[in-house]
C-alpha cells in the first residue's frame, strides 16, 4: 500500500511541474492563439535566474523569487515584441517556427551565461522530506502545489471577473470585434505575455530545487506542458492544473506498475487519444466550430 502512495507522490512531484508549465501555455494561447514552443525556455530562465540571485548573490529566497518574476516579465515582453508581433501577420505556422527559433536563442544564451553544467538550488522549506501515510514527499512539492493553486485561482478570477481579463479573452476570441470595441489590443497582448513570462519564471524558480537548473531543461518541459494543457483543454487554466496532475500521476503509476521505459510513450499515447475523442479536453465544456 505504501508503494502506491509513493508512486502517487512521485506523480504529484512531476505533475505540479507540468501543471505550472501548462498554465503558462494557456496564457499565451488565450491571448494570441499560438502554441509557444519557447515556454519551456521561459521556465528554464526562471530557474537559472533563481540560481544567480539565491545561490550566487545569496539574496534570501522570497526576495530572490520576486526578482525572478521581474526577470520573467522582461523575457516575456521582449519575446512578444521581437518574435510574436513581427510574425503574427504571417500565419500560425510561421509564428510557431518563430517561437522555436526563440527557444534556440534562449538556450544558446543561457549556455553562454550559466555554462553547461547542472546547477543546484536549495528549496524554500527544509531539505528533509515529510512522511505522509508512510511515504516520503519533498516539501518543495507542497510549496509548488500551493503556489500553482493560488496562481490558477488568481487567473480564474482575473479572466472571469475583471474588465481587463475579459478584454484579453475578447481579443483572443475575435480580434476584429475587440478592436472595434475600443480595446487596446497592443496592451492586452503585452499583458498576457507579461503574465505568462512571470508565471513561467516563477515556475522555474520553484521547480529548480526539485529538477536542478540546466540550460537545456526547457525542451522536455515544453512537451509535457503541452500534454497537460491539452488534457485539461487548451486555454482552460484550471483544466491545465488538473491535466498536469493527471499526467504526472499517470507517469508515476506506470513507472511503478508497468515499465518505466515506456512511461513517456504512455503519456503521449494518452495525449493522442484525448485529441481524437475529446479535443476540447477532459475538463472544459465543448466548443463547437461553425461550418
Amino acid at each position: 500500500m505504501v508503494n502506491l502512495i509513493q508512486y502517487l507522490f512521485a506523480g504529484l512531484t512531476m505533475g505540479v511541474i507540468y501543471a505550472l508549465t501548462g498554465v503558462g501555455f494557456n496564457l499565451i494561447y488565450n491571448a494570441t492563439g499560438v502554441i509557444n514552443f519557447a515556454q519551456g525556455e521561459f521556465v528554464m530562465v526562471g530557474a537559472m535566474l533563481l540560481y544567480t540571485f539565491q545561490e550566487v548573490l545569496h539574496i534570501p529566497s522570497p526576495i530572490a523569487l520576486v526578482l525572478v518574476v521581474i526577470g520573467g516579465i522582461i523575457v516575456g515582453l521582449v519575446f512578444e515584441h521581437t518574435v510574436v508581433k513581427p510574425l503574427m501577420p504571417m500565419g500560425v505556422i510561421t509564428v510557431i517556427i518563430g517561437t522555436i527559433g526563440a527557444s534556440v536563442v534562449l538556450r544558446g544564451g543561457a549556455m553562454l551565461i550559466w555554462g553547461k553544467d547542472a546547477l543546484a538550488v536549495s528549496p524554500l522549506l527544509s531539505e528533509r522530506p515529510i512522511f505522509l501515510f508512510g511515504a516520503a514527499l519533498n516539501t518543495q512539492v507542497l510549496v509548488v502545489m500551493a503556489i500553482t493553486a493560488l496562481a490558477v485561482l488568481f487567473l480564474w478570477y482575473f479572466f472571469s471577473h475583471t474588465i481587463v481579463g475579459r478584454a484579453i479573452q475578447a481579443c483572443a476570441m475575435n480580434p476584429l470585434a475587440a478592436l472595434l470595441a475600443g480595446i487596446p489590443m497592443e496592451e492586452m497582448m503585452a499583458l498576457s505575455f507579461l503574465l505568462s513570462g512571470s508565471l513561467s519564471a516563477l515556475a522555474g524558480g520553484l521547480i529548480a530545487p526539485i529538477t536542478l537548473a540546466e540550460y537545456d531543461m526547457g525542451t522536455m518541459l515544453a512537451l509535457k506542458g503541452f500534454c497537460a494543457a491539452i488534457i485539461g483543454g487548451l486555454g482552460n487554466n484550471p483544466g491545465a492544473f488538473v491535466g498536469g496532475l493527471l499526467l504526472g500521476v499517470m507517469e508515476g503509476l506506470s513507472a511503478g506498475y508497468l515499465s518505466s521505459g515506456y512511461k513517456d510513450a504512455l503519456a503521449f499515447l494518452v495525449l493522442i487519444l484525448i485529441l481524437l475523442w475529446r479535443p476540447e479536453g477532459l475538463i472544459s465544456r465543448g466548443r463547437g466550430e461553425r461550418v
Partner: protein
Amino acid sequence: MQKVKIKVAKLLIFSLGLFLLTYPFTSSQAEEAYRIGAIFAVTGPAAWLGDPEKKAVELMVQRINRQGGLLGKRVKVVIYDTYGDPQAAVLKARELITRDRVMAILGPSRTPTSAAVMKALQLDREENRFQVPLVSCAAGRILTKPVKPWVFTTPQTNALAAERIVSYLSEKGIRRVGIIYVSNEFGEDGYESLKGSAAKHRITIVGVETYGGKDRDMTAQLTKLATKGPQAIINWSVGPTSVIVTRNFKELGLDKKGILLVMSHGQGNIKYVQLCGKAAEGVILPAGKILVAEDLPNADPQKRVLLSFKEAYESAYHEPVSHFAAHAYDALMLVVNAIKRGKVRPGDGKGLKEALEQYCRGFVGADGVFNYTPQDHNGLSVQDLVMLKVKKGRFILIH
C-alpha cells in the same frame, strides 16, 4: 529573351550560394607540425563530457608547445564540437582528415558517436583508406570487444568498472543487488556488464529499473526496487539524473533501511557530490585515481602524473578536474608518448598506430597504467580503479 535571363539568374544564384557557403573552409597551408584532431560533445546533452575533455587537451597542448614541442616540432590541435550527434561526428571526423590533414583523432566523447565514426571511416577494418587512428574517450564495449584495428579507447570500460564494484560487494558479503540505469548507451552497456560480473560472482540481481535522460523524479522506480529487498542498489548513469537518484534515495530513507547506494564511475566528478549536497554522504563508487590523487601512497607511480595534471587544470580553469578530463588527457598523452618513443614522422598515421600498439606498455596515465597491445586497445585493468566513498562532501579512498 527575358525568360532565359531569369533561368540563368536562378542557376547562378543557386550554384554561387552553395559554393560561397562552402568556399571559406579551404584549409590553411599545413606547415611542418604534428597535426592532431579532436571531436568532443562540447555542447548539447553530453556537454558535461565534452567540455572538460576539450579544456584538458587545449591545456596540455599549450604546455607541450611551451616546453619545446614534440621532437622539436610544434603540436597543432584542431577541436570540433559534435554536440553529441553521430552524423555531426562523422562529418567533423571526415573534415579533420581530408581538410585539416590530422594524423590522429582524439574523442569522440560518447559511444554512439564513436561507433558512427568507426563505421563511417571503416576503422574496424585493417586496410582502410584513411590510415588515421582514433583514440576515443567513450567506454562502450562495441569499440574494444573484439579489438578494432584503428580504434583505441582511454576510459576504464564499463566492464572493468562493473567488475570492480561486484568484486568489492561480494568481498563485503553482499549477495542481493538491485540495478537502476539511464536508458542510454552508457546505462545499457553498464547494465550488461553488471549482469556478466554478477553471474561470475554468484550475486543475484533482485530487480532492474530504468529512467529517461530527462527524467527528474525516480522515487517510483527506487521504491519498486526497495520492495525486492536488495542489500545494495547500483545506479548506472551520467550527469544530472545521477544527482536526482541520489537525492530520491535519501528522501525515501533507503539508506536508513541499510541499503547501500553504489554509483558508476560516471559520477567520478566532485560536482556530482556538490550538487547532491548531504544526500551523497555514504555513497560509494569506483573511479580513476585522479579524484583522490593526494591520498594515494607516494609509491603509486600515478600520483606524480595526477598531481601535476590536476594542479595545471585547476589553476587554468578554476574548476575541479573530472574523470572525463582525465580520459582526454590520456588520449593526447598516449599519442604524444607513441610519437616520441616511436620517432613517428608528422602525418604518418600508420606509423602512429603501430607505435601506440608497441610503445604504450606500462604507460602511466591519469586513468591508470595503460598496456596497449595489438589485441587490447584499452590496456587498462581492474587495478586501475579504486573504490571511493563520499564523506563530508569529499571523496575518500576506501579500497
